[in-house]
Protein backbone atom coordinates (compact mmCIF):
# COMPACT_ATOMS: atom_id res chain seq x y z
CA UNK A 1 0.00 0.00 0.00
CA UNK A 2 2.20 2.74 -1.26
CA UNK A 3 -0.24 5.59 -0.71
CA UNK A 4 0.70 5.64 2.92
CA UNK A 5 4.05 7.05 1.94
CA UNK A 6 2.63 10.53 2.19
CA UNK A 7 2.64 12.85 5.14
CA UNK A 8 -0.40 14.75 3.94
CA UNK A 9 -2.27 16.18 6.90
CA UNK A 10 -5.95 15.65 7.60
CA UNK A 11 -6.52 19.39 7.18
CA UNK A 12 -5.02 19.27 3.71
CA UNK A 13 -7.22 16.36 2.72
CA UNK A 14 -10.30 18.13 4.00
CA UNK A 15 -9.26 21.14 2.02
CA UNK A 16 -8.96 19.08 -1.17
CA UNK A 17 -12.44 17.73 -0.52
CA UNK A 18 -13.71 21.29 -0.07
CA UNK A 19 -12.16 22.33 -3.38
CA UNK A 20 -13.77 19.34 -5.10
CA UNK A 21 -17.13 20.16 -3.58
CA UNK A 22 -16.85 23.81 -4.57
CA UNK A 23 -16.22 22.78 -8.16
CA UNK A 24 -19.00 20.22 -8.13
CA UNK A 25 -21.51 22.57 -9.70
CA UNK A 26 -21.90 23.73 -13.29
CA UNK A 27 -22.46 27.39 -12.45
CA UNK A 28 -19.42 27.56 -10.21
CA UNK A 29 -17.29 25.72 -12.72
CA UNK A 30 -18.29 28.25 -15.38
CA UNK A 31 -17.56 31.18 -13.01
CA UNK A 32 -14.12 29.69 -12.38
CA UNK A 33 -13.52 29.29 -16.10
CA UNK A 34 -14.46 32.94 -16.70
CA UNK A 35 -12.34 34.27 -13.84
CA UNK A 36 -9.37 32.08 -14.73
CA UNK A 37 -9.08 33.87 -18.08
CA UNK A 38 -7.64 36.95 -16.47
CA UNK A 39 -8.65 40.13 -14.75
CA UNK A 40 -10.86 40.37 -11.65
CA UNK A 41 -14.57 40.96 -12.32
CA UNK A 42 -17.47 42.45 -10.42
CA UNK A 43 -20.65 40.60 -9.52
CA UNK A 44 -22.49 42.76 -12.08
CA UNK A 45 -20.09 41.68 -14.85
CA UNK A 46 -20.38 38.04 -13.84
CA UNK A 47 -24.19 38.23 -13.66
CA UNK A 48 -24.33 39.94 -17.07
CA UNK A 49 -23.32 36.86 -18.99
CA UNK A 50 -25.72 34.48 -17.28
CA UNK A 51 -29.43 33.92 -16.73
CA UNK A 52 -29.01 33.81 -12.98
CA UNK A 53 -29.86 36.51 -10.46
CA UNK A 54 -27.26 38.59 -8.74
CA UNK A 55 -28.07 36.86 -5.43
CA UNK A 56 -27.57 33.40 -6.93
CA UNK A 57 -24.22 34.38 -8.45
CA UNK A 58 -23.15 35.95 -5.16
CA UNK A 59 -23.97 32.75 -3.29
CA UNK A 60 -21.88 30.68 -5.69
CA UNK A 61 -18.99 33.14 -5.43
CA UNK A 62 -19.06 32.81 -1.63
CA UNK A 63 -18.74 29.02 -1.91
CA UNK A 64 -15.74 29.45 -4.21
CA UNK A 65 -14.30 32.04 -1.86
CA UNK A 66 -14.59 29.75 1.16
CA UNK A 67 -12.63 27.10 -0.73
CA UNK A 68 -9.97 29.69 -1.59
CA UNK A 69 -10.54 29.38 -5.34
CA UNK A 70 -11.54 33.04 -5.67
CA UNK A 71 -10.75 36.07 -3.56
CA UNK A 72 -12.64 39.31 -3.40
CA UNK A 73 -10.71 42.54 -3.67
CA UNK A 74 -12.01 46.08 -3.17
CA UNK A 75 -11.93 48.45 -6.13
CA UNK A 76 -13.47 51.73 -5.03
CA UNK A 77 -17.05 51.00 -3.99
CA UNK A 78 -17.15 47.66 -5.74
CA UNK A 79 -16.03 44.17 -4.78
CA UNK A 80 -14.16 42.40 -7.53
CA UNK A 81 -13.57 38.67 -7.60
CA UNK A 82 -10.29 37.24 -8.75
CA UNK A 83 -9.13 33.70 -9.39
CA UNK A 84 -6.47 31.99 -7.26
CA UNK A 85 -5.03 28.91 -8.99
CA UNK A 86 -3.28 27.50 -5.93
CA UNK A 87 -6.06 25.33 -4.45
CA UNK A 88 -6.69 23.78 -7.86
CA UNK A 89 -2.99 23.15 -8.36
CA UNK A 90 -2.84 21.39 -5.01
CA UNK A 91 -5.94 19.36 -5.77
CA UNK A 92 -4.48 18.34 -9.09
CA UNK A 93 -1.28 17.28 -7.38
CA UNK A 94 -3.19 15.31 -4.76
CA UNK A 95 -5.36 13.44 -7.28
CA UNK A 96 -2.28 12.81 -9.38
CA UNK A 97 -0.55 11.24 -6.42
CA UNK A 98 -3.51 9.05 -5.44
CA UNK A 99 -3.76 8.02 -9.08
CA UNK A 100 -0.06 7.14 -9.31
CA UNK A 101 -0.31 5.09 -6.14
CA UNK A 102 -3.16 3.05 -7.57
CA UNK A 103 -0.98 2.38 -10.62
CA UNK A 104 1.68 0.90 -8.37
CA UNK A 105 -0.74 -1.16 -6.30
CA UNK A 106 -2.48 -2.50 -9.42
CA UNK A 107 0.79 -3.44 -11.04
CA UNK A 108 1.58 -5.59 -8.00
CA UNK A 109 -1.83 -7.24 -8.45
CA UNK A 110 -1.04 -7.84 -12.13
CA UNK A 111 2.25 -9.48 -11.24
CA UNK A 112 0.53 -11.73 -8.73
CA UNK A 113 -2.30 -12.99 -10.93
CA UNK A 114 -0.19 -13.41 -14.06
CA UNK A 115 2.49 -15.36 -12.25
Amino acid at each position, binding site marked *: *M*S*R*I*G*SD*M*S*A*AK*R*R*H*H*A*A*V*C*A*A*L*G*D*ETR*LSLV*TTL*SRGEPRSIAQLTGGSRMTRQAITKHLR*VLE*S*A*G*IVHSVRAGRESLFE*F*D*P*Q*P*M*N*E*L*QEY*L*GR*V*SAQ*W*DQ*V*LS*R*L*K*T*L*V*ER
Partner: protein
Amino acid sequence: MNERIEKRIELRAPLSRVWRALTDHREFGEWFGVKVEGPFVPGQLSQGQITIRGYEHVRWQAVVQKIEPESLFSFTWHPYGIDPKVDYSKETPTLVEFRLQKTAGGTLLLLTESGFDKVPANRRAEAFRMNDGGWTQQMKNIESHVAHRQ
Protein backbone atom coordinates in the same frame (compact mmCIF):
# COMPACT_ATOMS: atom_id res chain seq x y z
CA MET B 1 -20.28 16.14 -10.51
CA ASN B 2 -18.67 13.30 -8.67
CA GLU B 3 -14.89 13.52 -8.34
CA ARG B 4 -13.37 10.14 -8.84
CA ILE B 5 -10.27 8.35 -9.96
CA GLU B 6 -10.71 5.66 -12.57
CA LYS B 7 -8.32 2.95 -13.70
CA ARG B 8 -8.64 0.18 -16.28
CA ILE B 9 -6.16 -2.63 -16.38
CA GLU B 10 -6.11 -5.75 -18.54
CA LEU B 11 -4.96 -8.82 -16.68
CA ARG B 12 -3.82 -11.95 -18.49
CA ALA B 13 -5.48 -14.26 -15.99
CA PRO B 14 -8.89 -15.92 -15.72
CA LEU B 15 -11.63 -13.96 -13.99
CA SER B 16 -11.86 -16.49 -11.16
CA ARG B 17 -8.14 -16.05 -10.47
CA VAL B 18 -8.44 -12.26 -10.27
CA TRP B 19 -11.54 -12.54 -8.09
CA ARG B 20 -9.60 -14.67 -5.61
CA ALA B 21 -6.70 -12.20 -5.56
CA LEU B 22 -9.15 -9.41 -4.76
CA THR B 23 -11.37 -11.03 -2.17
CA ASP B 24 -9.26 -13.63 -0.40
CA HIS B 25 -7.95 -11.51 2.46
CA ARG B 26 -4.51 -13.18 2.40
CA GLU B 27 -4.05 -12.69 -1.32
CA PHE B 28 -5.39 -9.15 -1.14
CA GLY B 29 -2.84 -8.40 1.55
CA GLU B 30 -0.03 -9.72 -0.61
CA TRP B 31 -0.40 -7.11 -3.36
CA PHE B 32 -1.98 -4.37 -1.28
CA GLY B 33 0.74 -4.53 1.35
CA VAL B 34 -1.24 -5.32 4.50
CA LYS B 35 -1.64 -8.35 6.78
CA VAL B 36 -5.44 -8.50 6.88
CA GLU B 37 -6.63 -10.19 10.07
CA GLY B 38 -9.69 -12.07 8.82
CA PRO B 39 -11.92 -12.77 5.82
CA PHE B 40 -13.77 -9.92 4.16
CA VAL B 41 -17.43 -9.71 5.19
CA PRO B 42 -19.84 -7.12 3.75
CA GLY B 43 -20.71 -4.43 6.29
CA GLN B 44 -17.80 -5.29 8.55
CA LEU B 45 -14.61 -3.53 9.46
CA SER B 46 -11.50 -5.15 8.07
CA GLN B 47 -8.13 -4.30 9.50
CA GLY B 48 -4.54 -5.31 9.73
CA GLN B 49 -0.97 -4.21 9.96
CA ILE B 50 0.75 -2.61 6.98
CA THR B 51 3.62 -4.73 5.64
CA ILE B 52 5.33 -2.07 3.52
CA ARG B 53 8.82 -1.41 4.88
CA GLY B 54 8.91 1.70 6.99
CA TYR B 55 5.17 1.66 7.69
CA GLU B 56 4.83 -1.54 9.73
CA HIS B 57 3.53 0.48 12.69
CA VAL B 58 0.51 1.68 10.70
CA ARG B 59 -2.93 0.05 10.97
CA TRP B 60 -4.95 -0.37 7.79
CA GLN B 61 -8.71 -0.15 8.10
CA ALA B 62 -11.55 -0.42 5.64
CA VAL B 63 -15.25 -1.28 5.78
CA VAL B 64 -16.21 -3.90 3.22
CA GLN B 65 -19.28 -2.81 1.27
CA LYS B 66 -20.14 -5.29 -1.48
CA ILE B 67 -18.94 -8.72 -2.48
CA GLU B 68 -20.84 -9.75 -5.63
CA PRO B 69 -19.14 -12.94 -6.82
CA GLU B 70 -16.76 -12.47 -9.76
CA SER B 71 -18.24 -9.07 -10.50
CA LEU B 72 -17.88 -6.40 -7.80
CA PHE B 73 -15.81 -5.94 -4.64
CA SER B 74 -15.96 -2.62 -2.79
CA PHE B 75 -14.90 -1.01 0.46
CA THR B 76 -14.81 2.42 2.05
CA TRP B 77 -11.75 3.83 3.75
CA HIS B 78 -9.85 6.98 4.58
CA PRO B 79 -7.08 7.46 2.06
CA TYR B 80 -3.92 8.72 3.74
CA GLY B 81 -5.37 7.78 7.11
CA ILE B 82 -1.99 7.12 8.62
CA ASP B 83 -1.63 9.60 11.47
CA PRO B 84 -2.34 7.69 14.72
CA LYS B 85 -3.23 10.96 16.46
CA VAL B 86 -6.10 11.75 14.10
CA ASP B 87 -9.62 10.33 14.48
CA TYR B 88 -10.55 9.65 10.86
CA SER B 89 -13.93 8.20 11.77
CA LYS B 90 -15.40 11.70 11.74
CA GLU B 91 -14.40 12.23 8.12
CA THR B 92 -16.42 10.98 5.19
CA PRO B 93 -14.56 8.04 3.65
CA THR B 94 -13.98 7.46 -0.04
CA LEU B 95 -15.46 4.45 -1.82
CA VAL B 96 -13.17 2.03 -3.65
CA GLU B 97 -14.78 -0.30 -6.18
CA PHE B 98 -13.21 -3.13 -8.17
CA ARG B 99 -15.31 -4.37 -11.10
CA LEU B 100 -14.36 -7.36 -13.22
CA GLN B 101 -15.25 -8.25 -16.81
CA LYS B 102 -14.26 -11.31 -18.77
CA THR B 103 -12.35 -10.52 -21.97
CA ALA B 104 -10.86 -12.58 -24.79
CA GLY B 105 -7.38 -12.36 -23.28
CA GLY B 106 -8.31 -12.65 -19.62
CA THR B 107 -9.93 -10.14 -17.31
CA LEU B 108 -10.57 -6.42 -17.41
CA LEU B 109 -10.35 -4.74 -14.01
CA LEU B 110 -12.06 -1.38 -13.55
CA LEU B 111 -11.12 0.47 -10.41
CA THR B 112 -12.83 3.61 -9.17
CA GLU B 113 -12.22 5.63 -6.05
CA SER B 114 -14.95 8.20 -5.51
CA GLY B 115 -16.21 10.60 -2.88
CA PHE B 116 -13.40 13.15 -2.81
CA ASP B 117 -16.11 15.83 -2.88
CA LYS B 118 -18.20 14.73 0.10
CA VAL B 119 -16.86 17.07 2.74
CA PRO B 120 -18.81 20.35 2.79
CA ALA B 121 -16.98 23.35 1.44
CA ASN B 122 -17.36 25.29 4.64
CA ARG B 123 -13.77 25.69 5.61
CA ARG B 124 -11.72 28.76 5.08
CA ALA B 125 -8.86 28.11 2.78
CA GLU B 126 -5.38 27.97 4.15
CA ALA B 127 -3.21 30.84 3.06
CA PHE B 128 -2.06 29.83 -0.37
CA ARG B 129 0.78 31.35 -2.24
CA MET B 130 0.01 32.74 -5.62
CA ASN B 131 1.11 30.53 -8.43
CA ASP B 132 1.03 31.49 -12.05
CA GLY B 133 1.14 27.98 -13.45
CA GLY B 134 -0.85 27.34 -16.61
CA TRP B 135 -4.41 27.19 -15.43
CA THR B 136 -6.00 25.89 -18.58
CA GLN B 137 -3.61 22.95 -18.59
CA GLN B 138 -4.41 22.24 -14.94
CA MET B 139 -8.09 22.09 -15.77
CA LYS B 140 -7.38 19.57 -18.52
CA ASN B 141 -5.21 17.55 -16.16
CA ILE B 142 -7.93 17.43 -13.55
CA GLU B 143 -10.44 16.31 -16.15
CA SER B 144 -8.14 13.49 -17.11
CA HIS B 145 -8.09 12.19 -13.55
CA VAL B 146 -11.62 13.01 -12.68
CA ALA B 147 -14.68 12.04 -14.64
CA HIS B 148 -17.53 14.51 -14.41
CA ARG B 149 -20.55 12.39 -13.77
CA GLN B 150 -24.15 12.67 -12.57
